[in-house]
């Protein structure tokens, strides 16, 4: 079982924790290929509390994205159980889950407004409600002046904002983010991190962020899970202890450096292991 650090010491015992929102028990994933069976993930046992910001870091190829795919019901686990709001996850993505991927997932033939409303227009929702939510999302993501623009006219960061806005429009209770800022430069990533924190506070959703960037995880998350090299297992879950009202300026406080250093200490050996060539 992962060890759980806390900055609250013994008082943690009397603080009431929010209810469990997502639970993974003994989750593993194995792939069959021509080269044989590959054990990609697990066993994983973690709980995500309602409205918390949870990050997962790990070396390349450790199965971080597979973990997200399993939680989103995009990939079935080979063994174990995933529950969302107390219900086991089956073969279809449950209501209330939104996913933002690392790759550009904008629909190139639709303008920004049509991209954002794509999912909601296919739900039994009044047109006026779609329009209201669209305007809110455009406002929240700073895309008001680009509603009629096409994805090809936008920068990588703005396209990712469109994808986030599209996810938000569905009002998900669990937002899964698979390295959403992986293709962006450092400055844009910091600013997008601020926007993400703002959205997280505004929506009250639970957020699971998969990232390879230790500083991003340390800055954004309430708790950071560190994964081992493949097959990915949870080595440790670190509680950051940040207040809910926070932004990217947190990178200048000494505790941020300490958390990032702790993450790197845990990950260094794993990353070196991941870099070693596979036995043929």
């Amino acid at each position, binding site marked *: 079982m992962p060890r759980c650090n806390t900055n609250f010491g013994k008082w943690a015992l009397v603080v009431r924790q929010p209810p469990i929102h997502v639970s993974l028990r003994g989750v593993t994933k194995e792939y069959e290929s021509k080269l044989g069976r590959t054990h990609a993930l697990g066993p994983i046992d973690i709980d995500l509390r309602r409205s918390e910001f949870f990050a997962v870091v790990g070396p390349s190829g450790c199965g971080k994205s597979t973990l997200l795919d399993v939680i989103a019901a*995009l990939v079935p686990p080979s063994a174990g159980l995933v529950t969302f709001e107390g219900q086991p996850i089956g073969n279809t*993505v449950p209501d209330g889950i*939104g996913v933002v991927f690392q790759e*550009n997932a904008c*629909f190139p033939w639709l303008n920004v407004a049509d991209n954002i409303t794509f999912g909601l227009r*296919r739900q039994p929702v009044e047109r006026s409600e779609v329009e209201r939510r669209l305007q809110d999302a455009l406002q929240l993501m700073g895309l008001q002046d680009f509603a009629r623009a*096409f994805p*090809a*006219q936008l920068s990588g960061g703005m396209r990712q904002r469109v994808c986030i806005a599209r996810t938000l429009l569905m009002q998900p209770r669990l937002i899964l983010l698979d390295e959403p800022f992986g293709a962006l430069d450092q400055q844009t990533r910091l600013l997008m991190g601020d926007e993400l924190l703002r959205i997280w506070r505004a929506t009250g959703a639970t957020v699971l962020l998969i990232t390879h960037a230790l500083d991003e995880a340390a800055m954004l998350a309430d708790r950071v899970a560190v994964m081992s090299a493949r097959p990915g297992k949870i080595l440790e879950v670190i509680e950051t202890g940040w207040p809910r009202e926070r932004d990217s300026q947190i990178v200048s406080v000494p505790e941020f450096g300490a958390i990032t250093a702790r993450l790197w200490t845990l990950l260094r050996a794993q990353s070196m292991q991941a870099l070693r060539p596979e036995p043929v």
Partner: protein
Amino acid sequence: MRIVFYRLVAVFLPLTLLEILCREHVIKPLILPPPSRILLGLWAVIANGAFNAAIVKTLANVGLAIVLAVVVGIAAGAAIHRSRPLRTLLEPLFSTYYAIPIYAFYPLFIVVFGLGDTPQVLIGFMLAVVSMIVSTLAGLDSVPAVLGKTARVMQLGAVETVRSVTMPYAAPYLFTGVKLAIAYAFIGVIGAEFIMSGTGLGYEIRFAYDNLDNDVMYPLILLILLIAVAVNMSLDHWDRALRSRRERG
């Protein structure tokens, strides 16, 4: 605008030269009348109305071949895309398909389907369908996996995913397939009419040729040329409009 000017020069300069060579009898009228006379002849042919039935019949058969090739091509392309063994089996055949002289099968089609329009439509269809299958495969291959995942997260069903995500993404490739299918359908149907048929524009051109009737033959060739150019230019215009929204940076 300058490019339009150069294009017009590229078309009208050789035509003017041809006009002069024909009028000076450097090229004999029996071989080729002056282009201006062919143009007047085309007007006469259209005004006369004697070839309306042939024009309608050819265009209807070409249209039928196109519709069949597009529908069957997309359906077959989608099925082959889903089945790895089918693709491994058929893909090498597609690359050699156009090396087969389809017209060689025309007598067989007449024996099987009779002397009606069916063999001509079939030739047009057979020439057109493979380009549509190949374009459909290329289009479906181009759809990023992340869009499929996005569709699943949005809880779209299989049909809705194809209709709202896969096909719109693959649309430029499908459009290229449609353009090729139209060109091949024209070649197939008119070629078949030319070889062995009693009706249609191809037949009328061959009949005029056999009777040394240049006043009919050349205007009808010009008519086919104008139809093919007009159709192709319209499709190019739509294609550019479709791509410009998706690709402008």
